[in-house]
């Protein structure tokens, strides 16, 4: 029996309303950091249980304690300041990191959260980091003479954190690089920086990138020095599979089957069809089935309804095709 089609998620989950309220209360000084921390831990425990209950193979801590995926790290690293709010769209704003000096990792950034999450389950929990290229590209730079210099300092810092996660026992370490796909001219820099960030890791390494100009960056994308590349497949109606027929995808793939930008819950049949189309081109042992991207923009009910459909669809395909987990 072949094995494969393991199920997982890309990383973030929606923050429960009570946690959103608590974060706002903390920002206004109305509740203590300890009170917020306790609530984050309580909600993380619940989230891990729900992932177990629906039958996911590889879990995440859900990042309920993080705000923006770059700012969370920047707030904990010397060399960064945090800007006043910058708009991302409409009425949505975030505080953007500013490199104001040499960026260093002087303390663990995520390890304690990973240990806590792993202590709650026997299933593996992924270590989740933001990659050096994305951290650089999504920050202002008032210090470094070049984008490369900044990316490589970040890569060294993230490598220390990745090694610490591995030391703590993480078997899967995901270093997200969503910014990679929109600047094809800088793919070599992204490859170099990610290589430095993943240096010395024995754990399975993964990177998630968002949909971009694949006509330009594929198959050079396969140069990213990780074991697995996680891609949005459903959002692009699986059209990348045509590219893979002509130019085989040679790494493991995080195979996105849920559109995270849509409130609608997919049917089991459409997810199955997406997986079956993938199996025409990819081997089951290459495929880790997951949503297209982080689920933080969905409601918790939507997120788990989608994930349950995904897990059920995978189970049916495994049974029909004789694929073991």
């Amino acid at each position, binding site marked *: 029996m072949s094995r494969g089609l393991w199920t997982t998620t890309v990383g973030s989950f929606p923050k429960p309303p009570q946690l959103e309220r608590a974060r706002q209360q903390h920002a206004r000084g109305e509740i203590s950091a300890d009170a917020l921390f306790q609530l984050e831990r309580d909600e993380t425990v619940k989230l891990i249980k729900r992932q177990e209950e629906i039958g996911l193979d590889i879990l995440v801590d859900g990042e309920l304690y993080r705000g923006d995926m770059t700012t969370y790290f920047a707030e904990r690293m010397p060399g960064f300041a945090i800007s006043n709010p910058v708009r991302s769209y409409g009425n949505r704003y975030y505080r953007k990191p500013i490199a104001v000096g040499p960026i260093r990792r002087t303390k663990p950034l995520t390890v304690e959260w990973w240990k806590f999450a792993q202590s709650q389950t026997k299933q593996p929990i992924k270590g989740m980091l933001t990659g050096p290229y994305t951290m650089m590209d999504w920050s*202002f730079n008032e210090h470094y003479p070049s984008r490369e210099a900044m990316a490589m300092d970040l890569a060294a810092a993230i490598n220390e954190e990745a090694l610490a996660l591995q030391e703590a026992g993480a078997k899967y370490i995901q270093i997200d690089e969503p910014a990679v796909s929109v600047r094809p001219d800088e793919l070599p820099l992204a490859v170099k920086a990610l290589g430095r960030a993943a240096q010395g890791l024995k754990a399975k390494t993964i990177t998630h990138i968002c949909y971009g100009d694949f006509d330009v960056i594929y198959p050079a994308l396969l140069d990213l020095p990780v074991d697995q590349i996680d891609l949005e497949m459903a959002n692009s109606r699986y059209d990348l599979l045509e590219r893979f027929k002509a130019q085989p995808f040679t790494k493991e793939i995080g195979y996105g089957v849920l559109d995270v930008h849509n409130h609608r819950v997919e049917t089991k049949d459409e997810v199955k069809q997406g997986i079956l189309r993938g199996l025409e081109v990819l081997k089951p042992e290459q495929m880790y089935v997951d949503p297209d991207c982080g689920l933080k923009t969905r409601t918790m009910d939507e997120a788990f309804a989608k994930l349950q459909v995904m897990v059920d669809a995978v189970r049916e395909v495994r049974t029909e095709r004789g694929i073991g987990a």
Partner: protein
Amino acid sequence: MKIQTTLAGSYPKLPTEPGDVNVRVVRNRRDQGKATDQDVAQAVRDTTRRMIAIQEKAGVDLVQDGCAGWDDAQTYVARGLDGVRIAGLIRYLDTNTYYRQPEIVGDVKWKAPVTAEDFKAAKGMSSRPVKMLLPGPYSLTRFSKDLHYGDPVKASRAIGESLAKEARALEEAGATWIQFEDPWLGRATAADAPAIRAALAPVLADRTAKTVLNVPFGTPTGIFDSISDLPWTAIGLDLVEAPGGWDLLPRIPKGRSVALGLIDARNTRLEDATDVARSIARAASARPDLEYLLSPNASLEYLPADKAEAKVVLLVEAARLAARNGG
């Protein structure tokens, strides 16, 4: 030398002073049922007033209304077009910002003015000429998903003809400057030339207002010969991210203007005014026959409000320094 200062794109909507109107807060309150659409409209107007005041205080010659009511660079105007529906969020080029993608689902037709009232309001708040912003017609076409025409030239022409009517409405309201933000011109190749001309020719024909064709994030080198004869007043060059724009200077037709995008709108690091003035002098030395505008290379809304305001002050300081030095 003669150089006018101006801005590009939109301006940060949030206040730097506590107690100032905060349109983000008002919109959030509206979404919670605690404020009305009228409250939001008033907050947008008050925000426009602040944006213009910041520019006037700094001494900007040609102020912009700042696009206080825009969610992104495309949909504020695209929502007003027949044949276009607004779909999901996608990333805006290589920025960490987003826009809702317009989808062309039928014949694109202009319905009614979208920006004319904004112009009238801004004009009433300013003692200086007000430059109004419209999406570049080629970029609006490229940012859209064409589910109807199946032909980039036809889609571009339809968008161009629709935006031409919006530009006419602005002129009828009294606008004397209109800027088209067209970043895709900096990414186009010669093969795109027919669609580009189909998009641009209608919006530039028969204009009474002066027009700026602004090209952030790139340089229109590859298609410049295809657009150089079109009747734009000024071309905006992003000389921060695309220094290749310097090579276009010798090719600018006589009698046109160049908006020198020399202030980095995508980084908080504040430029040295002397360096900027030196770059202005470089342009003036290369082409002393042209007229110049000085602007940021892109929308200052990529910056937090405090940093944007500092860049506006720097912009004017650099232009004055260049003028004192004789260009």
